[in-house]
């Protein structure tokens, strides 16, 4: 599944990084501690978080993640969105809290 398909199925907003919507999604990872994501997330995963700092994008590109989903109507900070466009890793958004969007993503990916 591509990020674009995932965004459509989960009704996500696309905040930035449109050029990366063709990335292939291999799984998901949920954490708000960036040190944890840096250590434990895998390439191709979609990362669900409430953090919006620009370091989010540095870690997403370091780990070559497929996309980031910001929960609870959080929006990326300006420099975070700029980096998302540059790295072509989309930042998506939802008004759902972490538990609910994680459940939906899990259902979608386990098929």
């Amino acid at each position, binding site marked *: 599944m591509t990020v674009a398909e995932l965004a459509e199925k989960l009704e996500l907003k696309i905040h930035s990084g449109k050029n990366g919507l063709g990335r292939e999604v291999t799984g998901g990872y949920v954490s708000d501690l*960036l*040190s944890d*994501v840096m250590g434990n997330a895998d390439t191709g995963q979609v990362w669900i978080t409430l*953090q919006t*700092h*620009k*370091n989010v994008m*540095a*870690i997403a590109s370091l780990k070559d993640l497929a996309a980031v989903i910001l929960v609870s109507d959080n929006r990326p*900070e300006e420099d975070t969105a700029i980096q998302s466009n540059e790295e072509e890793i989309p930042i998506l958004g939802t008004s759902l809290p972490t538990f609910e969007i994680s459940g939906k993503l899990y259902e979608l990916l386990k098929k």
Partner: protein
Amino acid sequence: MNQFRADLHVHTVLSPCGDLEMSPAAIVETAARRGIDILGIADHNSTRHGPLISKLAQKKGIFVLCGAEVTTREEAHCLAFFENFEILAAFQQYLDSHLPNIKNNPRYFGHQVVLDEDEMIVEQEERLLISGLNQSLDQVEEEVHRLGGLFIPAHIDRPKYSLTSQLGFVPQGIKADALEISRFTTPEQISEQFPWIASYTFIRSSDAHHPDAIGSGITIFEMEHRSFDEIRMALHRIDNRSTHIERH
């Protein structure tokens, strides 16, 4: 130039995790006994004990930097210090308007009390002070600097409530007046890990929550005399002023 021994990160009984023995009077007594010249008072998200400690410390010849240890929205702890009580009060208003209204339960988190110089309770802070503000790291930094304050991310090497734990690594280009490290690392070690911070000034402090720990981390300031401006100049190494971490 003169040398001054500074411990810039001391909590009081107002911090929920601060020991009940951390009264303003006891802190000043201990700091004086341990030869501390400059004391930074930094309770979690509150500046309210600073002015009294400043007054008590003056009698012992100790200079006090008043401020707080702010919890940003990312839950990264950052020290913030201000030049005078008026600006401190303005920053207190900022804290009050951005701290979530969650009631403290002393059973779980500890008491949050403001004392007078006779160690009598004059006020109990009802809101839980260890919550994160609804302000990002960058927003807090902007507000501290707008008020002419000093902004120093705390214990940046630690696995809890630090830039590295919450944000993975120290953000490049962060507008900090200094970076605080714990006793578990050195400026050389952490600069090896994050080469882009090698040119920052590093301080070490105690992060004391009980009297025994006061002075367990010391930064030496080399400057003309003790004032907010001189401290700022030393942190930025202006006109031959400088700082270095005291060896154990």
